[in-house]
């Protein structure tokens, strides 16, 4: 494959459910070594776009390519060795333990030389997601955050170059939000491409290379955090007064902080 070629490409993707248009012509390219945050208000089409990128569904029109090949042409097993996906909902039908769930992430490598690494990869993934101490607990008996981290460990154990994460930080405490996104970053540094749906704009600002802002099924802004997180744009998209401030950092590069502007709202009322 040629250098600089996009790992994920969505071109003019339209998704309609009956009369409702969920995605209205979305273009997106994600390269290796890039962490892209998908943000936008509820119902903007973030999860739908992620479902299209993962190959769960075919778009009504438009194309989605992974590593230059249309998703529909991939064999599922081969695709599972290239991209992993963390879904929003984590549940299980039988009392599998956390370790068994993480080991399921190795399934696409069965019967290949990489299978020998199974135990190592599982242990490493569980360590990264900080769920080693939960190894023998039944998945169903865990808290929401513990389930989320165990599922994330499963996604890591899958060892893919493409990571699709639907609200990976939901129900995680502050420390685990940070450590999880830090581990995504280190995968990205090693050459992976990651797309994460994030609701917390501060996390998106702090950890992503690029933010894609979706609104009513369209990309309204796509660029580095400082270019996308503009107060007037966010206020309009989220239909709520929002201010963006820069907290001065030690290295001269400040952190962007996105906050609802409660004073402005009060004066509007």
């Amino acid at each position, binding site marked *: 494959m040629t250098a600089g070629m996009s790992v994920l490409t969505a071109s003019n993707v339209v998704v309609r459910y009956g009369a409702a248009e969920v995605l209205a012509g979305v273009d997106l390219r994600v390269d290796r070594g890039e962490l892209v945050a998908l943000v936008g208000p509820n119902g903007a089409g973030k999860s739908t776009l992620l479902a299209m990128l993962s190959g769960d569904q075919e778009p009504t029109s438009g194309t989605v390519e992974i590593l230059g090949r249309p998703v529909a042409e991939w064999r599922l097993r081969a695709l599972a060795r290239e991209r992993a996906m963390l879904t929003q909902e984590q549940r299980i039908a039988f009392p*599998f333990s956390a370790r068994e769930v993480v080991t399921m992430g190795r399934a696409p490598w069965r019967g290949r030389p990489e299978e020998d690494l199974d135990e190592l990869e599982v242990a490493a993934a569980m360590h990264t997601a900080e769920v080693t101490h939960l190894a023998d607990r039944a998945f169903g008996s865990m808290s929401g955050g513990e389930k989320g981290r165990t599922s994330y460990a499963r996604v890591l154990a899958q060892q893919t170059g493409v990571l699709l994460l639907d609200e990976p930080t939901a129900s995680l405490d502050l420390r685990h939000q940070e450590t999880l996104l830090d581990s995504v970053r280190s995968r990205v540094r090693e050459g992976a491409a990651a797309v994460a749906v994030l609701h917390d704009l501060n996390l998106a600002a702090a950890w992503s290379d690029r933010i894609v802002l979706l609104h009513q099924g369209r990309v309204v802004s796509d660029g580095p955090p400082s270019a996308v997180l503009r107060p007037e744009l966010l206020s309009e998209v989220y239909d709520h007064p929002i201010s963006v401030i820069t907290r001065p950092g030690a290295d001269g590069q400040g952190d962007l902080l996105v906050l609802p502007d409660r004073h402005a709202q009060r004066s509007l009322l």
Partner: protein
Amino acid sequence: MTATASPVSKVSTANRGRRTPAPPAVRRTRATLFLTGLVVALVAVVLVSAGSGQLRIAPDEVAGSILHRLHLDLGPMPSHPRGDATLWTVRFPRIAMALLVGATLAVAGALMQGVFGNPLAEPGVVGVSSGAAAAAAAAIVFGLGFAGAWTIAACAFVGGLATTLLVYLLSRSDGRTEVVTLVLTGIAVNAVAGAVLALLMFLGDTQAREQIVFWQLGSLGGSRWQYVWVVAPIAAAGILVAFLAAGSLDLLALGERSARHLGVHVERLRIVLIVVVALLTAAAVSFCGIVAFVGLVVPHLVRMVTGPSHLMLLVGSCLAGGLVLAVADLVARTLVAYADLPLGMLTSLVGGPFFFWLLRRARRTAGGWA
């Protein structure tokens, strides 16, 4: 009087649902011991069961008879002049059928639970058995014979497949089957299949009626080698496919989307396994009638020992199902002298309360089957 809620009771209910699975190493040793124990118990039950009845034959003579057939001159032959003949024409085909049907039903139950993502799914409970029985009864009443000895099995398969698909389509939403929906669907399907059976009884002559009643009760009484040879290949093929699908079934426990993300062809897997469930149920039902709850109780007990991983679960269910039915049949024909109790009645008598207990437990854990 002042009524105060006791905080102690709250604590105990919160802790009850949380069973921590044993560490894998412990589980593996336990599973190996369990499987070995099952095999030993199976051999013992076969020897005792074959020797029990009006003509008593000692277990060592039963073993001797089997070994001599295998051209091994070990152990004593049955001392009774008709002993060897009784074993090989009456007792062994019946025991072979019990083992086959037990294994078949238990595997069908385990598969169904995996496909539906619901531990309460079972061919008898959801009405697949009665669907298969209704179709088989139709074959008798209308005197169908298009496939020779296989006709009844073929009809049972068609009926079983139709009902499995029906239940599957009716009871699932969002890739999952809720307990209530499944049980209610089972009631509806069983009601319709029961009505069809009743209609067939009304239409049929006395002989057909007797045969239909035999189906509803479930019995291994009429087992012959020729029937065993019809059931055996179907059961073997179905169980083999089940073993091959074990890994994918584990992944399916994560839900359809996640299973697909891990490379499982969910749609294909589902269709193949539904056909296998219908095939296994038909194999069991066509010559023995409705033997309910084996597919529910056995996988549950096995899961408690081996854990939820499907390969061990299926191997264990195969052995334990055979054992349970062999024991049940031994009880059915020896509990009351000179009487052959209906096998299906016995399994329902034990399985019904067990099912009830499972339902209670499901309710306690807030309807969740985690």
